[in-house]
Structures are given as C-alpha cells and as structure tokens.
C-alpha cells in the first residue's frame, strides 16, 4: 500500500528576516559603519527638526495686522497674510485683480477641456496658443470694453513670475524648433547662423542678456521708437530660452533613426512635410522631459528680473522684508517664496516623470 506523500506546511520565515525589527537591522544597523551613519543622521535630524517645528508652528503667530501682533518667539506668518495680495499681484490695483483671476480660471478651463474626448484637440490647441494670449493680454492691460488701463510697471508678484515663465516658454518653443532644424540642416549659411546664435547665448549668463534687453535694446532702435520694459525683458528671456530649447530639441532630432528621414523622403514628402508630419512629432515626444526641465529652469531664472528693477514674487518679498514696520521678517518671507517655487518646480518635475512613463514605448533598453 502506497503511502501518499504529504508535504509538511512551510515554516514561517525566520523572525529576524521579516517585520519592523528586521527592516531596521537591514536598513539602519547592518554594519558598524551603517550604525555610525544612522547615529549621525539622527543627530542631524535632532539639530534641524525640533527648532524648525518650534519656530514655524508651535511658537508662531498666524494672524494679525501688524508686527505688534507677533508676540510669540517663533515665525510671524501674519506678515505673509498682510502682504499676500502684493506677493500674488504686485502693485496691480486691488479692485482689478479679478481680471488676473479670470484669466487664470479661463486657462485652467481651456486646459481641462483637453480631457473631454469629443473636442477637436487641434482647434483647442490653436485656441490656447493663438486666441487665449490675446484675450489674456487685453484682460491684463485693459483699455478695451471699459476695462481700466493698468500700466505694466504695476504688474508684479507671482503673476509676473508666471507671465514671464509662460510667455518665455511658449514663445521660445517655435523659435527653438526652427533653430534646432537650422542647426541640423545641410545648408551651410543657415547652419552657421543658428550655431553662432545658440552658442553665443548659451555661453553668457542670463543677467547679461537681461541687462542687454533693458539697457542696450533702446540704443539699437531708431530715435523715438521705444517699447515697454516688460516687452524688452520678455524678448530677452525668449531669445535666451530659445537657445536652450534648440539644444533639447536637437537631442530629440538626433535620436530619430535615419530610416525615418529616408522613409519620409521616399514617400515624396517635401522637407517641411516630412519634418512636421514625421520627424518632429517623434522627436518632440522624446524630449518632453527635457522641455519641462528647461521650463523649470526658466521659471526659477525669472527671479533675475529683480536685478534689472522689476518686482516679481521674489522682488516683492525682498521689498516687503525691507519695510521698516516689519523688520525681522526676512526668514518668513524667504520661507514663503521658497515654498511657492519649490511646490511649482517639484510638481512640474514629478509631472514630467509621469509623462515620461506614459510615453514609454518600449524602445528603451534594459
């Protein structure tokens, strides 16, 4: 009579290889050096965290109308509350700020429409890129439909930061594509013009470009013709980021296999047809993370307009911390600005990672 083999039930894993204790042993205490590092890290945390939490939350004053209300030994967040409107809109008249908010809501709604499947995405894109800026411009500047005129010198705060960043990136994008195509082209003159432009701009700091925009452009224009400082700075920022954008896009163009170019040629497409229909869509998709990185860099760099005398978010905060009735609120101001910039940039970088994963087509090795 055959005895049926019955495996005995598996033993549970050894206690010291699962659970919290094992995790701690493996990740924090695996070797003498590791133990030392863990102790060191705890020491760093001990030095940093308690004072920051105490200062920022426990002993902080959150509301109030003047410095006198800040009686605690911690942060005086009331300062941010009092100046909040200035940080957001600069010196834009407070009864007109609804125009900025309206433009923002409009933009969010337009972008949200992308999620609706039945909408024609081409028309929507054209609407956002061509029609929306016109509407937004008239909303911001006024002068039509009975809207009060608001001088651009009053624009500031986070509004100006965003405006510089968004206009810079949107305007530099087509220019960057053209420069990248020019650099890859077989026409020697077109190629050298593009290379000289790209390399010159990339070799100098943004500040020199901004100084050029604010000091030198007027010298190059005919007598009597002069335009607004904001516009000059926007031109400077656009040219600057176009050079960087061009290099990002060039990377994408180089990554497209030669067969794609040949196939497009063989199909009888003209140069522009093959670029617009075959090459660029593939190339741009590859470099979306690079484009987002350029945008993050540009968004942070917009703070430099403070040096040529414009008051973006950082500039407004810098001005507010020098207000004599709020002395000693410097750290609060920087913490607020730091948080706003951090949240925006970190969010964008995470978003670009998500896109990267979503567009992953399996071409990648490993």
């Amino acid at each position: 009579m055959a005895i049926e083999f019955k495996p005995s039930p598996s033993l549970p894993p050894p206690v010291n290889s699962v659970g919290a204790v094992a995790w701690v042993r493996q990740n924090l205490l695996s070797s003498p050096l590791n133990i030392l590092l863990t102790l060191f890290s705890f020491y760093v945390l001990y030095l940093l965290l308690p004072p920051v939490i105490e200062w920022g939350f426990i002993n902080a004053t959150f509301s109030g109308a003047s410095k006198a209300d800040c009686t605690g030994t911690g942060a005086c967040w009331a300062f941010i509350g009092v100046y909040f409107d200035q940080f957001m809109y600069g010196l834009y008249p407070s009864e007109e700020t609804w125009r900025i908010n309206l433009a923002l809501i409009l933009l969010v709604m337009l972008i949200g429409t992308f999620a609706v499947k039945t909408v024609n995405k081409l028309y929507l894109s054209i609407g956002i890129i061509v029609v929306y800026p016109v509407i937004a411009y008239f909303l911001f500047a006024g002068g039509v439909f009975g809207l009060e005129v608001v001088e651009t010198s009053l624009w500031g705060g986070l509004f100006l930061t965003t405006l510089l960043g968004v206009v810079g990136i949107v305007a530099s994008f087509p220019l960057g594509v053209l420069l990248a195509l020019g650099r890859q082209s077989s026409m020697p003159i077109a190629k050298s013009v593009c290379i000289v432009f790209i390399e010159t701009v990339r070799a100098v700091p943004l500040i020199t470009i901004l100084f050029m925009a604010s000091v030198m452009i007027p010298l190059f224009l005919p007598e009597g013709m002069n335009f607004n400082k904001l516009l000059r700075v926007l031109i400077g920022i656009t040219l600057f980021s176009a050079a960087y954008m061009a290099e990002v896009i060039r990377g994408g163009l180089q990554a497209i296999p030669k067969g794609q170019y040949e196939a497009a040629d063989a199909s009888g497409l003209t140069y522009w047809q093959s670029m617009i229909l075959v090459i660029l869509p593939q190339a741009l998709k590859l470099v979306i993370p690079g484009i987002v990185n350029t945008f993050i860099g540009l968004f942070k760099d917009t703070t430099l307009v403070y040096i040529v005398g414009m008051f973006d978010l950082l500039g407004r905060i810098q001005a507010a911390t020098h207000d004599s009735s709020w002395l000693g609120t410097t750290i609060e101001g920087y913490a607020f600005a730091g948080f706003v910039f951090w949240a925006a940039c970190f969010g964008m970088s995470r978003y670009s990672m998500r896109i990267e994963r979503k567009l992953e087509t399996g071409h990648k090795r490993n």
Partner: protein
Amino acid sequence: MSDKTTSSNKSFLNDAGNRALIFQIILLAVVVFVGYYLFSNLQANLANQGISTGFAFLNQPAGFPVLIHLIDYTEADTYGRAFVVALINTIVISLMGIVLATIIGVVMGLARLSNNWLVARLATVYVETLRNIPLLLQMFFWYFAVLATLPIPKNSFIFGGFFLNKRGIYSPNPIVQDGFGMVIAGFVLSIVASIALIVWAKKRQTRTGVWFPAYWTSLGVIFVITFLALVVSGFPIEFDLPQKSRFNVTGGMVLPPEFVAVLVALSTYTGAFIAEIVRAGILSVNWGQTEAARSLGLKDSLTQRLIVLPQALRVIIPPLTSQFLNLAKNSSLGAAIAYPELVAVVMGTTLNQTGQAIENIGLCMLVYGTLSLTISVFMNWYNKKMSLTER
C-alpha cells in the same frame, strides 16, 4: 536632408539645391540688413547722446571703491584695474565653487545610493529641496537671513582661532618669514621624488607584477621632507591671529559675508545637481561588473576605484561639464548681494558712470564666453582621457 535631384522636366525653382541656395541668400541678406540697420541706429543714437565709443575710458580713474579685492586697488585706480579686480573675483568664486560643489555633489550622490535608509532619505530631501528653489532666493537667504543676523563684532562667535560675526569669517592669516624658500624647495623636491617613485612603481608592476603602495608612500615622503625643512629652517611662518579689540575684530584673514553667501549658495545649489549626475552615473554601471569584480576577489574599495568609478565617469563627465559652466555663469548673481564680480562692477557701476553700454556689456560677454570655453575645453580633454579606448 535634401539631396540634389536633377531631372530635366523640373523647373529651376523646383530643384531642391537651387531652393536651398535662394533661401540662404535671402537669409544672409536679412541678417546683414538687420545687422546694418541696428548698427546705424546705434551710431545715430550714440552721436545724439554724445557718447564716444572705444575703450579709452578704461584708462580713466574709476573713483568708486571695490570692497573685495585680491590685488591692490584704491578709488584712484582706473576702470581697467577695477575690471581686472572684478575678473579675479569672478574667477576665484567660480573655481572655489566648482571644487566645493563637486565635493558636495559626490558625497550627496553616494549618500543617495547608501544602503542606510535614513542617510539616503536625508540626501534625497537635500537634493529635492535645493534644486527646486531659485538660486537668487538661496543667495538672499544666506546673505540677509543667515549672515546678517550674526552678532556684531563685539559678540563674535569664536571657534579656536576663527571668529564669526556680521562682518564675515575671520581666520588666522599665515605670514611668511625669512627662510621660507627652503621649505618651498623641500616641498618641490619631495613632489619630484614622489613622481619618480610612482613612475618606478608602475614600471615595476608592469614588468614583474609586484605591487607597491606608491601613493601612500609618496604622501609620507612629502609630509616628512616638508616637515624636516620646516624644522631645519626654524618654522619660518607666523600666524596673524584675529584679535578682539573694543568694537571690532582686527588682524587675521577675513572672508567677507558677500563672498561667503555667494560661495555657499553656488556650491550647495550646484552640488544638488551634481549629486543627481553622480547617482545616475554610478547606477549606469551594470551590476554584473561589481559582481564580476567581487568574484575575482577584489576588495570593495578596489572594486569601486578600479571597476565602477572609471566606467561611471564616462557617463558623469559631459553633464558635469555643463554644471560647471552653469556655476561659472551663475556667479554673476553675486551682483544682487553686492559681491563685486564682473556684472556688479562692469555692467553695474562702470556702465552707470561712463554710459559706455556697448563696450561694457560686450566686455562682460567676452569674458564669460572665454571662461565657458576654457572650462569646456579642459573638461573635453579630461573626457577624452577617460573615454573608452577600444582596440
């Protein structure tokens, strides 16, 4: 992309080669015309405003102080000398920043890969915080929020010979006495001896396979010979220690707060980017390489130094070069907190006083262009040296 297609039934304009030619002629004409137009406007404007062109102003007395100067400079000196002072300030801060940022970046990059969970998290927080906040904000933070809130000189923090207060960091200043030449000679001699030793050790290793700890030995040789020279010549060096006087700290070497703020901000900010580059570089080396090295019996330290690092460097160097370039260019932000570098002195004060916009901005762009070019030439040479040599 467009190859010449010659076909008899095509008209002149349909030929790709001809079209390219026509397009380029138009492009060239536009560039030349725009250039000419801008230049003629410029000349007219300069004539209207009575600004003379040229670099003659560089020989005129500047009349403004430059607070941080490594070579002698007074208000009576020329604009040209002020320019040189600013140039030195820019180069010094860039080089020191590059060295510090590389150290921070390598340490943080390795820390992110550490198998200690806590260390890796702390390094991640460091990287993600610093690289997502504008550099200018960080400079303001160090300058206005940290260094400006230090105590006045009377109540300086004191660590050993170092004083820390609102006016900067005071450190002992070494002053060379007679007979220091001997020490230098000893130092140079020991370096020559070490190089010879390393060459000999390498040759012997290729010939016989016997290994000799040349680097440690040379370190010892340099130390011993230099120390002996110091003893023989009777320690010809004195330290000028910072002294606390009634209201101030005198003596010693001073690192002004502007300098410290720019240096700290530049190196920690760029360090965060370098950390990511280092991490990506090390991760790019196939794990099999480490396993192979271990199975050959190499120690972990040797595995890192001989197997992983050389391969990682190939991935690391090109993006590292752009970070160095960024750092050098970002040193221009020092202008915002009154560190007297190129932009502050030349495009700020000099431009305002002389009105010579074209010359001053041109000069600045030229310097930054040259600086960028020098860094990238050097890094490309290094890259070539480190690159894969295939047989």
